[in-house]
């Protein structure tokens, strides 16, 4: 039986991810294994807690969703099988939809640059991502010192490796944009 209640931020997230944030019982296993935990002001479980309690502004102001690397360690180990990486993605999307300025400057540029590489090549093209991000963020000299070693180790290829059917990928992006509208 559905009881009428005002639509909440938590409901928005549930609609986007297919999982109700009230599933989380706050054990902290996600935060325990989070590799970017040291760089954010809030452990991931606290961002979920904000949403559970209806503190939308606090959730949207947190750096954690924006610094989330999407490594899925949390989602893999969660005892409630709550997909925390998807949750973080939803917080970012809702923040953008509400016109909230991302609390970590340039992260939006990074995500958009990354997606534009996927749209063009069908998979990550690191060098393209580097250029695209630097043009968008204007942090031209950031991390330049690590570039030579990364080249030598083969972490950054000069040419993109496209998927066989790049048109299909473009269609996916076009369709996604239509759905969004």
């Amino acid at each position: 039986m559905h009881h009428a209640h005002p639509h909440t931020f938590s409901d928005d997230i549930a609609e986007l991810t297919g999982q109700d944030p009230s599933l989380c019982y706050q054990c902290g296993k996600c935060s325990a294994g989070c590799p970017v935990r040291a760089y954010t002001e809030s452990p991931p479980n606290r961002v979920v807690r904000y949403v559970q309690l209806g503190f939308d502004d606090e959730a949207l102001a947190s750096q954690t969703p924006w610094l989330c690397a999407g490594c899925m360690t949390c989602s893999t180990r969660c005892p409630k099988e709550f997909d925390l990486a998807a949750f973080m993605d939803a917080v970012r999307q809702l923040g953008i939809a509400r016109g909230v300025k991302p609390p970590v400057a340039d992260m939006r540029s990074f995500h958009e640059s990354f997606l534009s590489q996927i749209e063009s090549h069908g998979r990550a093209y690191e060098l393209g991502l580097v250029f695209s991000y630097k043009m968008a963020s204007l942090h031209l000299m950031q991390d330049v010192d690590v570039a030579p070693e990364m080249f030598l180790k083969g972490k950054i290829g000069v040419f993109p490796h496209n998927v066989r059917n790049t048109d299909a990928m473009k269609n996916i992006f076009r369709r996604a944009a239509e759905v969004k509208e």
Partner: protein
Amino acid sequence: MKIGVFICYCGENIGRTVDCAAVAQACASIPGVAVSVDYKYMCSDPGQNLIINAIREHRLDGVVVGSCSPHMHEKTFRKACSNAGLNPFMFEMANLREHCSWIHDDIAVGTAKSIDLVRIAVEKVKRNEPLTPIRVPVTKRALVIGGGISGIQAALDIAGAGFQVVLVEKEPSIGGHMSQLSETFPTLDCSQCILTPRMVEVYQHPNITLMSYSEVEKVEGFIGNFSVTIRRKARSVRADLCTGCGDCVQKCPIKKKAYSEFEEGLAFRPAMYVPFPQAVPNIPVIDRAVCTYYKTGKCQACVKACGRGAIDFEQQDEFVTEAVGAIVVATGYKLYTIDKKPDDSQYKGYGEYGYGVYKDVIDGLQFERLASASGPTGGEIRRPSDKAVPKKIVFIQCVGSRDESKGFSYCSKICCMYTAKHAMLYKHKVHEGEAYVFYMDIRSGGKGYEEFVRRAIEEDHVKYIRGRVSRIYEKDGKYIVRGEDTIAGMQVEIDADMVVLATAMVPQPESAVLAQKLGIAYDNHGYFVEVHPKLRPVECSTGGIFLAGACHSPRDIPESVSMASAAAAKALVLFGSDVLEREPVVAKVNESTCAGCFYCQKVCAYNAVERREIRDRAGNLRKVVAYVNEGLCQGCGTCNATCPSKSVELIGFTDEQLYAEIHALA
């Protein structure tokens, strides 16, 4: 036929939304109704007298009361009919309360519906037959399955009341998990010290027949009349000759081929072994899988050592059949293990904790053995890999339990308490050691339990960290435990020498098979299910079978003992009667039309359908038909609905009766 109709107001319960006087008046004109009256409280003494007097005065041969639910007062009114000389099964109830007045607001609607409900009941009662309750004798003997603390308690209680008990235990000794424990919360009294006298009492009790190293093979019959076949596994040692001197165990040369089950794999045991020194009975068993004699026929060291000639390599499993009236199931639990599980398992292992490959990442029962004075280290806490005393131990609660991603939704209930005990015992034994506990919640409901946990924290300075552990890995001889303290909002990393996992309790792996033999219900984990969670917590839906201890759900020693005594009391209630009376609402097969397809047998949840041979006068087999055992049948009607030739009828609910009820509405 002359039917009497009696409409009850139930105070205002029915009277508020049903015009009871109008209902009584309308029902007077239903064909067959000789008298129709209304009254404020039909269940009261004057109300019942109204019925009794009407039966006598009008010579009624059927009664319908329109009132509450049969659950509430069917017995009351049947008794009233009986007192007036009418067969109690010539009575029907129309539920004007739950099915009508409580769910309608409009008096006109409620009144019209009440008249319909009474009309239906009148049509049914016209087709009722006088029935007599089924009477079955009671065998005043009990079977207890499982010789842990629950089974021991149930057996002692029933035996103490003067009835015979057969106690079946699948291991070579009784005692169960409690015999493995070091000390018990919240009093820290020695587990063995309080248990072993009970084990000896069982052994010496004149009313208890102990069958250790035995398993239930087959269960037939029904409440008061079970016939149980028990497999007595071959010990390879003759119990009638063995004195328990232990010379054979000493001389057995196969010392290191099998891990000791009792020591939870932390020590070896010989091929010829007694599980532990205080075992009851103190009769050894040969593990044929590792014994040299059974492999090459060469070794006879035990035969030479035995001064009584008790070794019998040729011994076979024996089957005995016992007649009992009640069964107490007390098969207990096991601990879930974190190792990798097969794909078809309902559980998953913990890759993030190493899938059980780290030697010094142990479980709660293993820690009990380390802390026990009778254990492999003589009670010193030493880690299994190098026997070093760990300077830093991490205890992790809720491993498996409450972890849906591993297949568990439930709380194992005892781990909060035994983890506090473990940490406390460690601090008592290793004063300079550090103990950390990762927990999600502390569940310490129980007498003296919360105080016990606080004592671990406040007096023994165990550090409790609120959060789950994400990963355990090995680095430079340490186990790095990576968790989060959600209170401080900080990641915590501890380099531990040993890790103790409070793993989930699960039922014995064969519990589902046993449940099928007994015809009792079990849940998706294999825990046995009671009839009613609040009011009948130790009874199974199959009559005469009762539950005790952790085979029902995770529970600690005091709860298991209480439940065992409750199960024993239920068995004794049964033994209080010589004969049982049961409702005669059972299925009956029409043998002349039964085609012998036995679909009914396949769908019967109570194993009540049997095969009966029909022979002619010359003794030639004419056909085989279904036959319903009245003692077992619970009157559910599944066979009735399944029978393709409509040869099964449920007495009291025949097709004719049900169609008449439906027609009454048309």
